[in-house]
């Protein structure tokens, strides 16, 4: 069953909150379900925050099962002066990617990566284009063209924690351009 997550936007010192989260996780022996967004490639620049110049807000992602207890802990730490600005359910998390290669082995590897996505992730959009141009075989000096080309752009969506791991895998791949993970609330 899919895990439900919430995005918590908290006003306060980022370093302090990070320490607080780490301490909370250690105390409660929590390994999953609480994510400090700045540690990962997650796009937290919401338009509303940009327009109101609230760049100092801290974003957390919290699994539904941990949310109530964690919010209580935040509220009880009055001396740390945290203020929960928003607490919204995440409806969808996704990442956009694109790639282009002229090598068939690399293409096969990329096809395999997107054919066998980790459980919990799915391709929301995928537009692969494979073309072969026999006229372009061989090398050129001034009119470069490749006889083989495989390119695609698309979106992967699913569980945020699996998406973070998958993002790391794609980012490490020489041929894949991957955008930060998007959170939709």
């Amino acid at each position, binding site marked *: 069953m899919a895990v439900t997550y919430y995005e918590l936007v908290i006003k306060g010192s980022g370093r302090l909150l990070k320490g607080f989260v780490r301490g909370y996780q250690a105390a409660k022996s929590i390994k999953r379900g609480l994510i400090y967004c700045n540690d990962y490639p997650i796009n937290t620049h919401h338009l509303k925050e940009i327009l109101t110049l609230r760049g100092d807000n801290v974003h957390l992602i919290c699994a539904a099962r941990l949310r109530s207890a964690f919010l209580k802990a935040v509220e009880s730490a009055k001396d740390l002066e945290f203020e929960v600005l928003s607490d919204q359910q995440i409806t969808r998390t996704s990442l956009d990617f694109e790639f282009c290669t*002229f*090598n068939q082995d690399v293409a096969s590897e990329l096809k395999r990566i997107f054919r066998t996505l980790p459980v919990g992730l799915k391709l929301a959009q995928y537009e692969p284009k494979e073309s072969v141009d026999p006229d372009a*075989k*061989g*090398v*050129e*000096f001034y*009119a*470069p063209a490749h006889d083989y080309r495989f390119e695609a752009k698309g979106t992967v969506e699913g569980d945020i924690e699996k998406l973070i791991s998958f993002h790391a895998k794609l980012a490490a791949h*020489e041929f894949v351009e991957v955008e930060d993970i998007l959170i939709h609330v």
Partner: protein
Amino acid sequence: MALDNKAMPRFATACGLTALVVLSFHGLAFAETAHETTHETESLGALLPIWSVIPFVGILLSIAFFPLFAPKWWHHHFPKVSAFWATLLALPLIVKYRGEAIHEILHVYIIEYIPFIILLWALFTVAGGIHVKGTLSGSPTLNLILLVIGTVIASWMGTTGASMILIRPVLRANAWRRHKIHVIIFFIFLVSNIGGALTPLGDPPLFLGFLLGVPFFWTMKILPHMLFVAVPLLILFFLIDSFYYRREEKPETTERVAVRVEGAHNLIFLAGVVGAVLFSGMWRPGDVNILGVHEGLQHIVRDLILIVMGFASLATTKKQIRDDNEFTWFPIKEVAILFAGIFMCIVPAISILQAGEHGQLAFIMTTLETPAHYYWITGSLSSFLDNAPSYLTFFNSLLGKFFTGLPHHEGVHGLLTEQATYLKAISAGSVFFGAMTYIGNAPNFMVKSISEEAGVRMPSFFGYPFKYGIPILLPLFLLVTLVFFRI
């Protein structure tokens, strides 16, 4: 196994026909002494309006930008674009100036274009018959050795030939490495460009200089400049490569194949090419009048020897070796077609520049004063236009600046003896700056393309100069200016 006649591409046949045409011209008339046509050049150059250089600018910009914005279309239609610009220039020029224009066009094609293409064809054919096989390790030391070898041989078999022979061994050696883009980048810097600075065989601009009267070994005077750039680049490469190599996960030892050079007998034909070019610079048997253009007999003999070397290579090299090099005639066809257009379109530019202060481009001569100016203007244009026409333009600009009205050979002699620093500046500028972008020199795109097909993610068109060319090369080129061209 030799290539059979059926497999012999049309271009090779065309080269043979060219030889016959050259020979038939040869029979037209002999002239006892060279009679320069400088007065005609001057008069046409003084008459031509500045907008007559538009087709020249147009064809160079087409070569620069069509591959970027419409690569597929360009790949199939570049001959039409070349023909368009050439026709746009030729028709009005011939209608308006008739005999003088025809003479200038014939002069450019007979003296410069045909020998230029024959040399490139011969070097391409001979180098395409050499293939390095075997397992190489991709270590920093080995990569450095390959780059040094490439830099050295580039001046003797051309940057194209050296790149063609060495790029695949370099790619194979580094196939297992995650960080290898820098190897290809430095390969382009050194083997595809800077290494070719020492002889007319090294880089097309220098061969054009040779055709215009610069002695074969004169370009060796660029050696200090070349070492000044190449040595720091090699050291920098070794440091960067060692840094990345330490971070690589080394592969388990696999079956190793001994390194060997297939088609090594082509080195004999390469020596023949070098010898023919050298010989043509030393022998002075007299001139031949070809349709009113005086061409040295030694040049015709040289071109014939080059054609023989090319055909000998074709006839004696196994087809498998050329297949392993993915050898096709397309690259040389590209050069022949595009340069046919460039050489047509460059006629007004050369004529106007040679007219010196009487021509519409006199402001170039007054604006550009020092060797540093010439180094940078030739270099800058060579970076994003092709370096051969850039060299040709500023070579003629120098003749117009210092020796207007003198016969061509006297002007070139003056350039070599009295204004050698200027000539060094445009020679170094055109060769070195070719490395700044993918379009600066013909082998750059070839190396990029082969590397991409081998699974290397090369930087984009703009990524290459901004990530590598400008940060690495520009400071070195500035130092070259300060050390060698400060006057």
